[in-house]
């Protein structure tokens, strides 16, 4: 393999969103059962990091309880669920186990499993109970909850190749967040996913489905920390434009904008970073001082003031989430740019640091308060990286409204993207987004975000050679996101398993 060996790949459990989506695909039940599960641990913005996917007692309980609720719903019409007459007895049950097992466990079940599942059915005091227990067993089993990959040997190599069944699940969960659809299962059945061409063909087909759109929206929600938008609290006395119904519109705007750009628009990273327009509820036009240029299915395309707004990082969702309840938070905004746009790790503060944080004195701007970070040598190490970036956003208040004055004084939005490949003085966010769009580091970091989302883990130094190859392709494709997603599905990491993990 010219790109080197594939990286580490741990067994992956369905995330809460994947669990719900899979129940919809499998049984058509849209209840949303995972709301009963404990809150997930978020790493790098995403809920699918395999290293933190522990199963605490509360979750083990809920897997059982929720399966009982799902089974109770699904067995309201048992014959429909089974696809045969329950009165036909175990012939029907055996047939159901084979057919349902292929979909629920995303692979053909073995004869040993078939026999074992039948024994669960037999444990029921009557046939209806037996079917319910059988369904529960399918859903609480690790074969459902996890994507367990074993692979097959590759001649002359230490690493193993994933089977077409395993690839089908990877493709489906990566691009749609749910189980494989019928076409993908058929392709796996025919071993059609053992070649890069076979995989790419299916990946392109899947990207045209509505489920792919929802999955891409989920990526952006994670990357941009949109999960925190729903609970934003602001005081209307301090922010006259505030309305408690806005957070939902903000989150929706960023997701709609991102998916519209990726699927209908220019499709590239530059547009995501610099577009002087957005998509969302028409009421947002007045909020941003923009104008609605077209409407489709209730979604407005809004042209924004080009000297004020450009792309995802001038949208209210990002700006408000990376603020405090009563004031902006340049540290949070600057930290986001360093960590999520440049993928730069920040060194920890030195030990025994006595931190004297900025005081809020009436009549001073946020920038003046943060001067202390510069003058305090121990703070400066980190904050000289964070603050000059975060303060560039100061034209946007804690609800993402444009402002030119703070505490009666003009706001200074000069700054610099130091220690990056796009240094040099900048004034304000719009020029900064232009620099972000020119940065190779930002392009690489965007690929890294997708790598984390696709493989459910943080990248390590040993992944760099292969990530750089993907970045090369992304640059060659002029930053087209859909091309990046297809490219990820034919990487060695996607198709092979490292020897040491199996």
């Amino acid at each position: 393999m010219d790109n080197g060996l594939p990286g580490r790949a741990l067994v992956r459990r369905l995330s809460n969103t994947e669990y719900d989506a899979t129940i919809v695909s499998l049984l058509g039940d849209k209840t949303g059962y995972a709301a009963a599960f404990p809150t997930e641990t978020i790493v790098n913005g995403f809920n699918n990091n395999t290293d933190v996917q522990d199963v605490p007692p509360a979750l083990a309980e809920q897997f059982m309880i929720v399966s009982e609720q799902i089974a109770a719903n699904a067995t309201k019409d048992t014959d429909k669920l089974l696809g045969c007459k329950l009165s036909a007895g175990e012939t029907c049950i055996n047939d159901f186990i084979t057919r349902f097992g292929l979909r629920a466990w995303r692979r053909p079940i073995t004869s040993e499993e078939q026999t074992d599942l039948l024994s669960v059915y037999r444990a029921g005091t009557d046939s209806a109970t037996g079917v319910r227990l059988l369904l529960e067993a399918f859903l609480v089993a690790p074969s459902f909850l996890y994507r367990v990959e074993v692979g097959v040997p590759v001649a002359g190599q230490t690493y193993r190749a994933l089977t077409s069944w395993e690839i089908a699940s990877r493709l489906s969960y990566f691009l749609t967040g749910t189980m494989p659809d019928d076409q993908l299962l058929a392709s796996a059945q025919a071993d059609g996913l053992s070649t890069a061409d076979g995989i790419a063909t299916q990946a392109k087909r899947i990207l045209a489905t509505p489920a792919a759109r929802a999955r891409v929206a989920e990526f952006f929600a994670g990357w941009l920390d949109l999960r925190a938008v729903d609970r934003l609290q602001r005081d209307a006395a301090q922010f006259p434009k505030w309305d408690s119904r806005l957070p939902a519109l903000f989150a929706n705007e960023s997701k709609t904008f991102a998916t519209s750009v990726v699927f209908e628009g220019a499709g590239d990273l530059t547009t995501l970073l610099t577009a002087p327009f957005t998509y969302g509820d028409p009421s947002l036009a007045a909020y941003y001082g923009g104008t609605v240029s077209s409407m489709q299915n209730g979604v407005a395309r809004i042209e924004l003031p080009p000297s004020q707004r450009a792309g995802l990082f001038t949208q209210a969702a990002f700006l408000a989430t990376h603020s405090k309840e009563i004031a902006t938070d340049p540290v949070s905004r600057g930290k986001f740019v360093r960590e999520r746009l440049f993928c730069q790790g920040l060194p920890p503060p030195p030990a025994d640091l006595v931190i004297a944080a900025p005081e809020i004195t009436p009549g001073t701007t946020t920038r003046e308060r943060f001067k202390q970070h510069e003058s305090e040598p121990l703070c400066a190490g980190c904050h000289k990286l964070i603050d000059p970036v975060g303060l560039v956003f100061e034209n946007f208040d804690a609800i993402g409204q444009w402002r030119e004055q703070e505490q009666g004084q003009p706001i200074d939005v000069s700054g610099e993207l130091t220690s990056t490949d796009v240094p040099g003085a900048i004034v304000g966010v719009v020029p900064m987004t232009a620099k972000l769009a020119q940065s190779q580091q930002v392009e690489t970091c965007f690929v890294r975000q997708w790598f984390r989302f696709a493989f459910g883990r943080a990248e390590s130094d040993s992944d760099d050679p292969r990530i750089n190859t993907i970045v090369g392709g992304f640059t060659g494709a002029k930053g087209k996101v859909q091309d990046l997603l297809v490219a990820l599905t034919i990487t060695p990491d996607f198709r092979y398993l490292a020897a040491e993990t199996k």
Partner: protein
Amino acid sequence: MTYKPLFSIPSKPLSRRTVLRGAGGVAISLPLLLAMGPRTAKAATLPKRFVVFFSANGMIKDQWQPSATGTGFTLSPILSPLAGHQSDLLIMRGLNNEASYIYGNNAHDTSCATMLTADRLMVGPSGTGRAGHVLDGTCHGPSIDQEIARVIGGATRLPSLELGVQSTTTILEPMVTRISYRGTPGNAKSVPLEDDPKKVFARLFMEAGTSTSALDTLKKNRKSVLDFVVRDFQRLESKVGAEDKAKLDRHLTTVREFELSLDKLATMPNSACVVPPQPTVNLNAVDCIQDDRPAKCYGDYTALGKAQMDLLVMALSCDITRVITLQWSTAESTIFFKWLNARGEHHLMSHDPKTYREDLIKIHTWYATQFSYLLDQLKSHTDVDGSPLLDSSVVLWANELSDGDVHNRRDLGWILAGKGNGAIGTGRSVKVATNSTTNQLFASLMTMFGSPTDTFGATQWKGTLSGLT
């Protein structure tokens, strides 16, 4: 362990009217009713309970510490809401959370992860420092609540319960927002908190109204399913590598524990417990009318906190679990105490204690009021022998910092409330010996809960804490 009755406030027999009113009219703990009868149970057999109450961002020391050490002290202004509980408290000054400084990690935003673990951090899931503000990750070892649950949790249906009050409404990393860790040293995982009182209620009282025969059927059915699930785990584990096997095995362990706990499912109401009313407070936004306009509304911090404390007390009273953590907000808490007319959010103000001294005092005093409410409830609910639940409990009020402004992890101000069946000598204010660590307090607590040790967390701070009794 000998039981020393140390009642400072006599637990007087209650009339039935008092019971009904005191428990909110509906929520009656039946052990309480036993208070009306003669005491028969042996105190020495009473179970011990462990509760953690967390609030963030340090304190204002001169307004927190009591006037003197010993028994003849006056409560500070911040602790004045606890006046009715002075004899229930062991107020401790001077503990150090030294583990939060190992490897040069300072208490900047990691103290909450080390607060109950007294152990170092490990490089975590976001990568080798590539993407984290601090050395990212998880704690090296388990926390005191989970370790106590490991020792005593098998006796109840739930080994432990982790409650939060607006603890997940943040973009902060897990390490800044999680205080409980379960597992073994080197392999500890953070335990998620439940912020939604309605979900907590469902978990605690899910079998309410179920008949004994229906419950027996449920247990039998669940066992059939779970026995199969265990076999599926075993089949998969035989096919995968060591790391995957370990991960699946951790899940399998909780499945087995859950299966064992089925035997503890009891019908409700039963001799030990009457189901309280379902909480009405909403964690998630619902449509409402505010100022004559359509709006989104949800329960406020105070209402959510009270609902969680009420459930906490019922969970102990019904003996569904004996170990509970209650985490108010997170480290670096940014709660904006509008109802106290605070001028800023908590964390930012904690870094300017000169300007915001009065605001911070109001916030800390407010937390003392909540703590006092919890103690009130633990006192008015009784154990099987009629003594207050508080007497069998050990309630730790912990804060991740001492002086929040400078992120100081030394000279913490922590409080133990309740007598732990005589293991804690309350009604005292103490200054612990110089260089005492939280490791030593936790080793003492482990010993108190039946697992004698002189080591907890990072091994460089051995020993136990003297003077607790």
